[in-house]
């Protein structure tokens, strides 16, 4: 069944490039929309149906996982993909370009869907490369100087990352003897026999993932790439691409028990904390809306990694929940920045002010997103940060817990700085005829805002039914 999600997308990419091209160009957008909605529906299908269909389409040598973690990732991919698609429809005027974008988006989805369902390290690496290839092209979509620069940095650092990951995979294979998740789990379950080679192998793989997820000091590419990419691509990048290609694999390795050596946990904690702090400090007083959000993205990934470092079930639950929240909230804020840019043509926050008066929907959803990501109740961001803090505290990491609480003050401060600059206060001169952004911007932001409110208010109901089972690894 999960295989279908890859096959459908692959088939779609192939079909729309067949003749008659004129016809397929017209329906490409709707096809992608349909497929992503289909994925959304798939995620919510009952489990029994999944297993039934699974026997039909899985083969022995290409097995798939469909545990809760994969489900959460598939759901995030579907949501963020849909949002990016809608914004692209509004943002990209030319039909040709939109067609190209849809092709790349589908390709990207193949990679991401593949990554989150495969069951061995090497296949995961393969899908990761598919995502990366699609994303390089998407970043240079507008073919200007900045875009080339951003893509180039991403390309160079990704090359280093893939080298490290390949090396790590090789080392692991030579010491463990297999790369399937099951084999890794069995090998690392017996802590006494873990050899130095395996540890270094995992370490190298982890370093590659650090680059992919943009942890400090491996984050150099990230702000430039996010800033240079066109708005829909930024949404995709920040919302899901870095998460599924970097953070997901870290979470998966953590839940497999591969990150058991204390030294690896300490590394996760240390790099997580450094990422939170430096990302947040760099986000403060940024002038460019998207760049600020990019640094904020770095900082939030730090929270996820910090939570992984706790190494407990609660820690994994917090990491997954925060990853989902971040996908929702960062897409929301990027949609807002795209909405503002679509009307004003600028991203310079110094040249903005009081836009909430003219763009009430954008302003309101932006406030919700900012408060939620800063961890203000009753929004969902509060609960995920709370879970992270509790997980750290229960794991005995009291200083890290205190640090996580204090650092969320920094989140709040740069988010409020953004709100004050862009949306609050008096409308600055020259924007008297500013209008609300188009329907294709408003719809996704309202839906995303509703999701974060709903998750926040409904948290007591989802905590026992959805959140905690996510972290209990059963396969």
């Amino acid at each position: 069944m999960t295989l279908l999600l890859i096959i459908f997308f692959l088939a779609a990419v192939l079909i729309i490039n067949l003749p008659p091209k004129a016809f397929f160009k017209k329906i490409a957008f709707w096809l992608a929309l349909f497929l992503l909605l289909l994925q959304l529906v798939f995620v919510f299908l009952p489990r029994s149906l999944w297993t039934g269909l699974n026997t039909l389409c899985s083969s022995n040598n290409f097995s798939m996982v469909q545990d809760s973690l994969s489900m959460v990732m598939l759901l995030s991919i579907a949501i963020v993909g849909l949002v990016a698609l809608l914004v692209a429809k509004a943002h990209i005027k030319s039909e040709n370009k939109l067609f190209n974008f849809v092709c790349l988006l589908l390709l990207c989805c193949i990679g991401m869907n593949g990554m989150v369902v495969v069951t061995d390290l090497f296949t995961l690496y393969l899908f990761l490369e598919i995502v990366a290839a699609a994303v390089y092209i998407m970043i240079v979509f507008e073919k200007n100087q900045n875009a080339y620069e951003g893509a180039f940095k991403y390309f160079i650092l990704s090359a280093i990352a893939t080298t490290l990951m390949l090396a790590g995979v090789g080392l692991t294979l030579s010491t463990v003897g297999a790369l399937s998740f099951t084999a890794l789990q069995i090998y690392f379950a017996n802590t006494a026999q873990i050899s130095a080679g395996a540890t270094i192998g995992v370490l190298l793989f982890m370093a590659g993932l650090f680059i992919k997820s943009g942890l400090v000091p491996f984050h150099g590419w990230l702000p430039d790439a996010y800033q240079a990419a066109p708005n829909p691509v930024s949404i995709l990048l920040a919302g899901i691409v870095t998460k599924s290609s970097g953070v997901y694999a870290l979470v998966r390795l953590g839940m497999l028990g591969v990150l058991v050596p204390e030294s690896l946990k300490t590394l996760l904690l240390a790099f997580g904390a450094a990422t939170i702090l430096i990302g947040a400090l760099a986000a403060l007083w940024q002038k460019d809306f998207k760049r600020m959000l990019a640094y904020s993205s770095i900082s939030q990934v730090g929270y996820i990694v910090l939570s992984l470092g706790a190494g407990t079930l609660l820690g994994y639950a917090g990491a997954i929940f925060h990853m989902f929240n971040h996908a929702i909230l960062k897409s929301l804020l990027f949609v807002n920045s795209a909405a503002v840019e679509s009307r004003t043509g600028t991203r310079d926050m110094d040249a903005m002010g009081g836009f909430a008066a003219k763009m009430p929907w954008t302003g309101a959803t932006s406030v919700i997103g900012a408060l939620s990501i800063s961890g203000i109740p009753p929004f969902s961001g509060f609960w995920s940060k709370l879970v992270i803090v509790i997980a750290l505290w229960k794991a005995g990491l009291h200083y890290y817990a205190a640090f996580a609480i204090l650092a969320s003050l920094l989140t709040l401060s740069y988010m409020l700085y953004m709100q004050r600059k862009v949306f609050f206060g008096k409308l600055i001169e020259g924007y008297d005829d500013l209008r609300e952004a188009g329907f294709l911007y408003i719809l996704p932001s309202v839906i995303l805002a509703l999701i974060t409110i709903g998750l926040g208010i409904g948290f007591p109901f989802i905590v026992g039914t959805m959140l905690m089972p996510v972290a209990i690894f059963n396969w």
Partner: protein
Amino acid sequence: MMEYLLILPIFIPLIAGLLAVVEINHKNYIREAISLLAVAANLIVTYALFDKKYAFSIPWAGFGMDISLRIYHFSAFILLASAAVAALIALYSIMFMNGREKNNYFYLYFMLTLSFTNGAVLAENLILMLFFWEGLLAVLLGFIAIGGKGSFKTALKAFVIIGVSDLCLMFGIALTYSLCGTLNMSEVTLPMTFMGGVAFISLMLGAISKAGSMPFHSWIPDAANDAPLPFMALIPAALEKFLGIYFLSRICLDMYKIEHGSPLSITVMTIGAITILAAVMMALIQKDYKKLLSYHAISQVGYMVLGIGTAVPVGIVGGIFHMLNHVLYKSCLFLTGGSVERQAGTTDLSKLGGLGKKMPVTFGCFLVAALSISGVPPFNGFFSKELVYDGALESGTVFYIAAVCGSFLTAASFLKLGHAAFLGKEQPVFSKLKEAPLLMLIPMLTLAGLCILFGVYNPLPLHTLIQPILGARLEGHDFAGLPTNLFLVIATVAVLALAVINHIWGYRRTGSAIKAVDHIHYAPLLHGLYDRAERKFFDPYDVGLKLVNILALSAWRIDRAIDYFYTKIVVGFTQAASGSIKACHTGSHATYIVWTVVGLSCMIYYVAFR
């Protein structure tokens, strides 16, 4: 089903008050009619409930907090007495308050006070009682605040003082719950341990401060100046005494078996004795009719607290009897003060004089009430004071002496007041002065009549109202009739005679009734104390305010320092950090690769060579 009648005393005044406040037409008397109907209905209901024993309980918030009401002879007595006093004062207010501003709020607060008092008396659950108790606090604020210019400050003062004492009460209730595991008053038995003592003291402070005892007293004299006069007659003189002494007796009789001669008993008696003396000393030198009375309202509480604090039957009966008597004569005295204020336009004693001829009925009522409060036989005050003396003498001579000194000074100050206001030379401005209207005279006459009745025929209140409260604790005594201890009677009469001689001597010496007690006022040693007291040196509220000011100033200084830390140091540091981090992001991919390599090296180094 009959037990649900208990909600009537709470809801009748409540609804009447809400109706009265929305009726804003000044001309017709609908508002007055509503309130009169309400107090009359309240009186009838409480009379009907008088010898009943009902109780009911509805689960409410959990944790022992239920809506439970209970009536038995003690609460029924308090209910009936407060209903009667409230009815008389409502009648009085019709003429007194007529045409005043915020008249509708007056009736609202009046009715709410009555409703909440009834609720607090009926409440069986301590939390429910606390609810009504705090409701009274809120109403008190509004009631004083409608008085006029400057009254809001006084209202706030009263609010803060009573609020602090209510905190004590709240703490006491919380402690009681943790010690006894129940909040039902009749089930509570505080242990005779240290913590039980702490709970007792906290509850006791809440109760006596409601009654107006020291050290939570200082708002009452201010309120006498600022609040509408019926407020004084209704609340500090009557309802709060009922409520405070009722709760104090409940604590001492039911909840904590206070023992004669125990340290807690001595503590309560000391508070009573100090209250008697200090407040009456202040009353002595007042030059305003209402203010003088208000200090007596504090001083007389001392007798009740002293009596109940003795923990012997004679003292407790005396204390509760004194409460009833005090309400009668002090309300009556305040009402005469109101008549003087309304007819003469002032209550300043130096401007009054010779009113007795012009207002004979008021003067008569004043005379009866003044004789009662001074403890002259055969008026009611005499009998209750004798009982308190008896109990005090049993507990320690020093308390008895304090009580007798208080009696002497009370008599002296009322000689001064009566002489200055009603006798002496008639002031020319009052030549056309008339007696107060009939509606105001009826309440005064009723109260004065009760003062005489309860004195001359004291078995009536003692047998029907007070002695049943003690039940078995009475140990077969009967305190009705004439006092048995002849020595006490002789001493009392001697002290009263001394007070008269003192007044005459002082009057001869200075030639003025107001200055008749100047030899006490300006006595060496006392002079300095009085001076300081006049400058509010001993007012806990003002002392507290000064302390708070000092605290606030230092807190402000600390706050500035913290503020500086956050706005300058933290922000500066963050800006510097943020700036240098931004400066590091040069955009050169070579730099970023170097960072990556450095990071990777750190990871490998840490894992491999740790």
